[in-house]
């Protein structure tokens, strides 16, 4: 459900699998035209740029398809259909208890957002910002700074700037620093400008004329959205189709246009997909639905699941959406830690982690992009069980536990017992991850989280090393070492931990740790890096750890140099 399985075969998946569905060499048996099925359209009620909408869409329809194909709103572009380029960035606001009547707009990749998740939301697109000819500040700043060249990524960038500008309006005292700019724009690729003029636009938009969109500052909008949300209980969404309209997923786009319709025999084929989309509001309903519909797929942020339809054309015709299940959206503090609802997004976890585990919080800034972090969930990242998911190695090192719930009841499990093999977990049929327990850190707990990737922003880990310990004089205690990208699953490496536990942080100790690493891990070679590189880099992360431990002392290094006090052992941009 979260970043990223389809595009990240780091472990044991056969290379040939990457060929994709369009290139099969083997003959296909099933040549028969599938029986025509009535398409189950489910209604979605939402607001688009201030206007109420009621649209019917199949469960596998994305917000991008809804906009471009159904509504003829082509300002939002498709660049990759896999959530990596940001050309389709839109902003979505959902009424929140914490913010009252003020709607908070968050960016999302429309290509990976299920249209049904718009239920009760306000969707803002690039078409909705200008007041007639008067441009919204993000737009006029982009024009003045010469920040568009080919213009194809521009609508997405404008939407990211829109969300940033609105956040800035709400909190004008917050400094617009590098960190915030990178967080706001890191998920929008531009191939033409080199970003400098976009940076200038971001920094100067506040001084543009403060044109407001026509729907902005409409306090009743939040109220109307709440009303919509209230009228969509889970049951109605799971019931029979409310309409028997039959059409193709792409056709309505064209049907809006100029010429008469097709011959009836041809129109309804193709993409009609029977389907159901349920959006339960509580855990009991969720697990009941899951028992009744064992073939249904769970969807939360959809940032990984949706690749199955956009990239691999797999049907997603029966979806159970967990994003509105109250129990999965809770954050419960306990004396010894927190129970984190599985459907809380990375974005929502940032404040908690920033306070208690800054290194973990910093990792999140390099997990996907803002568009992804606004939607991807912690539970999804775990359930997805990718060997290169970013949070599992950290959670493993911190001793996280899971609460699993099914109609049979609930059970707790240590996270390290959860991952069985490549993309295989201990989750039983009909069972969901309800919450994740994160232990509260005590004062002497230390944590380092180091992610290596080809590109710093919006990239998937080539490998991820996590080191947790307590310092006891010059000795290391309670050492936990976990890696991602080094095996078929994210894992702790007890052999390394054993070489370090209770030892002082000498070069000899770490030489043993590196030897243990080499004997216990056999990473693979893939598009992100070779096995040799992974091993060398992982060993060097141990070396980096040693150097940071002994930053106060002069230590002779392998190269024969003498390390000065407070020497740099890593780049600021990666330090956390």
């Amino acid at each position, binding site marked *: 459900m979260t970043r990223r399985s389809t595009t990240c075969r780091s472990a044991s998946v056969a290379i040939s699998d990457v060929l994709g569905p369009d290139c099969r060499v083997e003959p296909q048996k099933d040549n028969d035209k599938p029986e025509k099925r009535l398409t189950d359209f489910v209604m979605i009620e939402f607001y688009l740029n201030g206007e109420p909408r009621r649209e019917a869409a199949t469960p596998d329809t994305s917000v991008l398809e809804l906009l471009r194909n159904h509504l003829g709103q082509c300002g939002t572009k498709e660049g990759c259909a896999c959530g990596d380029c940001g050309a389709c960035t839109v902003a979505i606001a959902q009424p929140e208890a914490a913010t009252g009547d003020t709607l908070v707009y968050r960016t999302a990749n429309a290509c990976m957002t299920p249209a049904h998740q718009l239920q009760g939301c306000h969707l803002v697109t690039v078409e909705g910002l200008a007041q007639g000819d008067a*441009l919204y500040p993000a737009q006029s700043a982009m024009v003045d700074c010469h920040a*568009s060249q080919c*213009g194809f990524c521009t609508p997405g960038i404008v939407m990211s700037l829109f969300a940033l500008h609105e956040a800035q309006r709400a909190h004008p005292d917050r400094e617009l620093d590098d960190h915030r700019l990178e967080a706001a724009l890191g998920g929008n690729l531009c*191939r033409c400008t*080199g970003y400098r003029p976009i940076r200038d636009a971001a*920094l100067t938009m506040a001084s543009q004329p403060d044109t407001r969109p026509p729907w902005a500052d409409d306090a009743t909008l939040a109220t109307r959205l709440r009303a919509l949300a209230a009228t969509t209980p889970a049951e109605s969404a799971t019931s029979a189709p409310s309409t028997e309209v039959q059409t193709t997923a792409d056709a309505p786009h064209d049907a809006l246009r100029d010429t008469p319709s097709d011959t009836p025999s041809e129109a309804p084929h193709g993409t009609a997909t029977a389907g159901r989309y349920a959006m339960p509001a509580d855990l009991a309903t969720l697990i009941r639905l899951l028992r009744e519909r064992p073939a249904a797929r769970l969807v939360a942020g959809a940032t990984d699941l949706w690749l199955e339809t956009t990239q691999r054309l797999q049907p997603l015709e029966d979806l159970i959406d967990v994003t509105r299940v109250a129990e999965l959206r809770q954050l419960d503090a306990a004396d010894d830690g927190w129970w984190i609802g599985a459907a809380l997004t990375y974005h929502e976890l940032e404040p908690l982690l920033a306070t208690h585990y800054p290194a973990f919080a910093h990792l999140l800034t390099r997990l996907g992009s803002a568009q992804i972090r606004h939607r991807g969930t912690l539970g999804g990242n775990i359930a997805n069980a990718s060997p290169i998911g970013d949070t599992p190695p950290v959670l493993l090192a911190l001793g996280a536990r899971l609460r699993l719930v099914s109609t049979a009841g609930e059970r707790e499990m240590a996270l390290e017992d959860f991952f069985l093999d490549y993309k295989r977990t201990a989750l039983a049929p009909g069972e969901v991850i309800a919450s994740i327990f994160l232990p509260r850190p005590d004062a002497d707990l230390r944590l380092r989280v180091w992610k290596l990737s080809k590109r710093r922003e919006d990239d998937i880990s080539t490998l991820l090393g996590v080191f947790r310990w307590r310092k006891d004089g010059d000795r290391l205690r309670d050492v936990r070492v976990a890696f991602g990208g080094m095996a078929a699953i994210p894992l702790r490496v007890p052999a390394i931990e054993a070489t370090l536990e209770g030892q002082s942080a000498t070069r000899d100790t770490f030489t043993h740790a590196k030897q243990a690493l080499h004997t216990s891990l056999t990473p693979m070679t893939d598009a992100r890096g070779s096995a040799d590189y992974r091993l060398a880099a992982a060993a060097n992360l141990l070396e980096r750890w040693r150097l940071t431990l002994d930053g106060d002392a002069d230590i002779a290094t392998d190269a024969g140099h003498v390390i000065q006090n407070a020497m740099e052992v*890593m780049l600021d941009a990666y330090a956390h």
Partner: protein
Amino acid sequence: MRTLTKRPFSAARPETASSSETTPSHETAAAGDQDVLTREIEHGATVGRLEGDEPVARERLVPGKTTATPSHNAPDRHRHRHAHRHESAIKHVTGRARYIDDLPAPGDALHAIAGLSPVAHGRLTRLDLEAVRRAPGVIDVITAAEIPGHRDIGPVFPGDPMFAEEIVSYVGQPLFAVAATSYRAARLAVQAASVEIEPLPAQLDPVAATDAGEFARPSHEQVSGDWHQALAEAPNTLTAEQFVGGQEHFYLEGQACLALPSEDEGVVVHTSNQHPSETQKLVAEVLDIPFHAVTVENRRMGGGFGGKETQAAPWACMAALFARRTGRAVRLRLPRAEDTRATGKRHPFQNRYRLGFDDDGVLLGGDITLIGDCGHSPDLSEAVVDRAMFHADNAYSLGAARVTGHRARTHTASNTAFRGFGGPQGMMIIERAMDDIARHRRLDPLTVRKRNLYRAGRETTHYGQAVDQHPLMAEIIERLEASSDYWTRREAITAFNRHSPVIKRGLALTPVKFGISFTAQHLNQAGALLHVYTDGSVMINHGGTEMGQGLHTKVCQVVARELGLDLDTVRISATRTDKVPNTSPTAASSGADLNGMAARDAASQLRERLFDFAAEHYALDREGLRLLNGELVAGVGEVTRSLPWGELVQAAYLNRVSLSATGFYSTPLIHYDRDSGQGRPFYYFAYGASVSEVRVDTLSGEYRVERVDILHDVGDSLNPAIDRGQVEGGFIQGMGWMTSEELRWNDAGRLMTDGPATYKIPTYGDLPQVFNVELLEGHPNSQASIYRSKAVGEPPFMLCMSVWSALRDALSSLVDYRVSPALDTPATPERVLMAAEALRQMPAGPGASSS
């Protein structure tokens, strides 16, 4: 002279349109000129900078830097006389700019998708598409057998079948195509194909292909002087090999087209395409119909970079064939992964040098071999490898040298044009050599570079062209050396590295000399079509295409300038083959050079025609006529008279004067003789240089590009805002090529990095903390190019080489600068770490060599 009365002309100058009838307009005009002059003088103080164009972000963000608060008064920013915004800027930011897949189509439009080969090389023994035909929504299926005309759509040489027939040559090669009622239906239907391919050995190694004589085109040589003797007598020689990786274009708008059947036997094809005329030709040949039955149109592309010069045509041919067969409109757009697999990229190169030099590091001569990995067919590889050869010297005199270019044929997608067109890959080998020679002689690499620049007495290239304006190269380097504080920073960095075992900093300055012209002589021509309507509004059309580079803006500026009009009066329409025929691709950085001149020709013809008319009709002195600020101005001094443009146009129309003109241009002077490998292939050279500083973590291979200084030569800029955008964007795109953009194929020849999840182009955070970019001013083009400007599309791309050289510099410090490490590109964190590990294994002490 009789008094000329004014008529309102809203299109040209709304603010003066309703002014009083007897306003002596020349005063306004003179005041306007004065204003411009004043502004230009003001600008003189900060040479090469636009007002308000400084990189405001880092100025504000970097602590300790001067807090130059940017001007926030929007209308005042970029007030440079020619720094007009992009003609589509407002449409871009509001989502109103239409790209191919945004165009409305008839309700019964079909969606086409191609079925691609899963095998790199093999014999196609069975292609059973029965299940595809019966798949839901499928209306038509085509293979090679359904093509009425030409089946080979190779752009220059044959070798690119529209659909593979007997032999399959790469993973991603189209085998057939499907048209269905929806995009998804077409994509699903393709999966139902039953394909059997008997595998043949696939050649995936360009060096092995070269050794085996497997070439896409014959090899070519350029020789100057006795290179054998030069090498034999040189006191020092070095040899090295350098792999230079390819690059995916990653245009944000993928390949896309929309074909509409016309009422005769033809089609209208909207396509995201840099070469409409060639697509027109290929579509006509595939359909076996005359060229005039095919109209190809493009308003704008969502990026091209060379990737839509030849690679856009196959899809247009498929859509057109479906459109003719079904009588329905057909959309075809490639999903990103298929786009990446099916279309060619920048050529990877494997380069070698053996060079002799004196003790000062000055080249005496040698032998350079360039092997371009062409993929399965010639495409444009003949010219790409030629251009690599033409640039194997970059800015340096090679001495007595031989440059050999091989065009290796491998079983991958056919590599194609990409910004720089082989030039960057060629330059890399000599920049590699400059660093290597410097370490060998224990000199600073910049010293060696400067000593080897073209200079008086050493100004002729290995292909016989004299380098004009070569002093400009030295001047640019000297100015940049000073403005970037090169030597002070060099000292500081060396000192830092001595005491920092893990983090190493690196610094490098690399120059660029890039030849401007198509090396295929006949392509150096362009046409334009200019209409003036009776309200005075002007429509210009030309053969170039807009892919974001601002060509349309520049051409509108040329027309406005020639006719003395406000830019708003001039509008440009989509590039269409039925408006300006037989055009060249928008490529080789030549868009503005060629089409600007053609537009200028059309505008000046029309202007002269209007002068002839006005002189006679109003009995004015023909010699003193000029068009200024939306008016015809006659006479000088006290006796000037003026007539609003709109009124002039009306009068001309009523007097039956044609208000339409075609323009044409062909580049003079250029020639190249392939038999001798000598000539003057370039009309002129564009110059530039960059200084990059990097900070490398030698334990992880991670690095940051912290500061970049650029000084670049665009002659007299047509539009400094746009040119600066080209310089910055080109640099960052090049930086991606040098660093994070890695193409990886598996052993079966399948591209593993086929989308943005695995193929990493630079993102926002990769922008250097300090990025000082200046355009060189005061040096107009020595050749009579459009307003003495210089081409700017490609040359800045190669400024990126300083990033790679700086990484080598940082790594070199691990061994006290005794050697320059081999560092293939892209220099990913993995390659940087592995290079660092290799250096750490090296025995200490002098004498180690990079060869």
